[in-house]
């Protein structure tokens, strides 16, 4: 079980799950059918959660400004899609021929690659339709990514538009129940923004330490975890790298750690995965050496 990849699990066990899991209620004679895997150790720690994992078999999507093709710190992408607004005003997903319009998506992909070297990284570009189209692209891109069934979606971005909040909330909940983990940057400015505040996503802020695997659980949400986000060397345009600070760089560190955990334990739901993150956080029992 521990060696099984998430992809294999998706092919094999899901159908079985669908047959046995009751939808809305649990009749007495069905109780035996919902037995949940008991391969949890007595104490969930980093050795159980992360050791030996490379991210293999896990599909992670970078919903961002695009990713530069063949960047040495990112390597091959498993796929690159751009969301665009067609002449009819409708959004559509097309093959991305422009790469990264800013550098930020490449930075996020590089952080994921450095922590989870064998993860399958997909780029979904939601930048490029002008500012006025940015909310529409974000919604369409997230919806498209959730439909693809990626295991993890990294969202180092947010919107302040309240009209989008409800739709984003629905998509985030859909992802949660489809076993797609949304990891979103917390906003460090005094404004309301989404989707990081939703409890169905994992929200991330920054700490100032240098170890990419050090992360803290926050006892005072809505920000749930703090990861490395200050003075991070990140991949950037032109095959090079720059030094960067911001919650948007802490987010892919947590997304990559999720990828490592899911690679070893592919059956985890977002609820279970968030619990594992909590238990192995650097300020919680299982995360301490």
């Amino acid at each position: 079980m521990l060696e099984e990849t998430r992809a294999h699990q998706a092919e094999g066990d899901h159908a079985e799950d669908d047959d046995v899991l009751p939808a809305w209620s649990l009749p007495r004679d069905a109780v035996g059918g919902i037995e949940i895997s008991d391969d949890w150790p007595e104490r969930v720690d980093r050795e159980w959660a992360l050791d030996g994992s490379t991210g293999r078999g896990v599909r992670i999507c970078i919903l961002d400004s695009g990713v530069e093709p063949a960047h040495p710190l990112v390597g091959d992408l498993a796929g690159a899609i751009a969301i665009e607004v067609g002449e009819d005003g409708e959004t559509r997903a097309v093959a991305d021929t422009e790469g990264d319009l800013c550098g930020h998506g490449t930075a996020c992909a590089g952080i994921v690659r450095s922590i989870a070297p064998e993860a399958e990284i997909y780029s979904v570009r939601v930048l490029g339709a002008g500012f006025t189209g940015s909310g529409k692209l974000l919604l369409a891109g997230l919806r498209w990514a959730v439909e693809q069934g990626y295991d993890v979606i990294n969202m180092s971005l947010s919107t302040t538009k309240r009209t989008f909040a409800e739709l984003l909330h629905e998509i985030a909940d859909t992802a949660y129940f489809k076993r797609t983990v949304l990891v979103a940057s917390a906003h460090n400015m005094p404004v309301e923004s989404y989707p990081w505040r939703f409890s169905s996503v994992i929200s991330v802020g920054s700490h100032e330490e240098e170890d990419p695997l050090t992360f803290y659980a926050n006892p005072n949400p809505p920000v749930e975890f703090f990861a490395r986000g200050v003075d991070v060397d990140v991949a950037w345009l032109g095959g090079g790298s720059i030094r960067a600070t911001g919650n948007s760089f802490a987010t892919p560190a947590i997304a990559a750690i999720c990828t490592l955990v899911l690679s070893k334990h592919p059956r985890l739901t977002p609820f279970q995965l968030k619990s594992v993150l909590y238990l192995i956080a650097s300020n919680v029992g299982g995360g301490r050496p």
Partner: protein
Amino acid sequence: MNEETLRAAVAAGVMPAEARFAALLRSIVEVARAIFSAKASSIFLLDEETDELVFAAVAGEDEQGLVGVRMPSSKGIAGWVLSSRTPLVLDDITQDPRHARDVAESTGYVPKGMMAVPLLDEERALGVLQVLDRPQRSRFSLQEMELLGLFASQAAVALDLVGSARRARAALEGSGEVVAVARVAAALDRLEDERREDALALLAALERVLS
């Protein structure tokens, strides 16, 4: 025109909004530069009609001639910061060939380090504030990031306020009576005590005649 609209129009007329707006922009970039002891600071404002970012003010570098330069609103670092509503701090950006070229073409000055933060007032995104080439310390701190966010929020509230007055004033163009009333109100505002009282008495008399 109802009384409420008239009041707003007169208020806008009294306020020399265009000049105040330019002064506010200048003040924001100057304070931003001073807070972080940076070499320069600049503001891009979003032009919602053309969906472009407009280079609106700069402090520190001799680049005043660039004020008014436009660029697409979803390109480059400023475009990302605006679209994602997320602040970024980047160092060694001269390593980024596209950025260096774009910036050199638009402003002539290629910074090594940049802090960029969206100007957000509630759900509206107004533009992007950049602080360029702060002194290189060994490490950046989260307190600086917090300060950047707080300052940008204050700047955005002020910009939105003065911007509203500016838009109201622009809306006055062409509507004769209101412009006339606004001009009278502005002139009244500038009068000394005694003449002001006389003028108010005159206006009261005019009001009686008209009603």
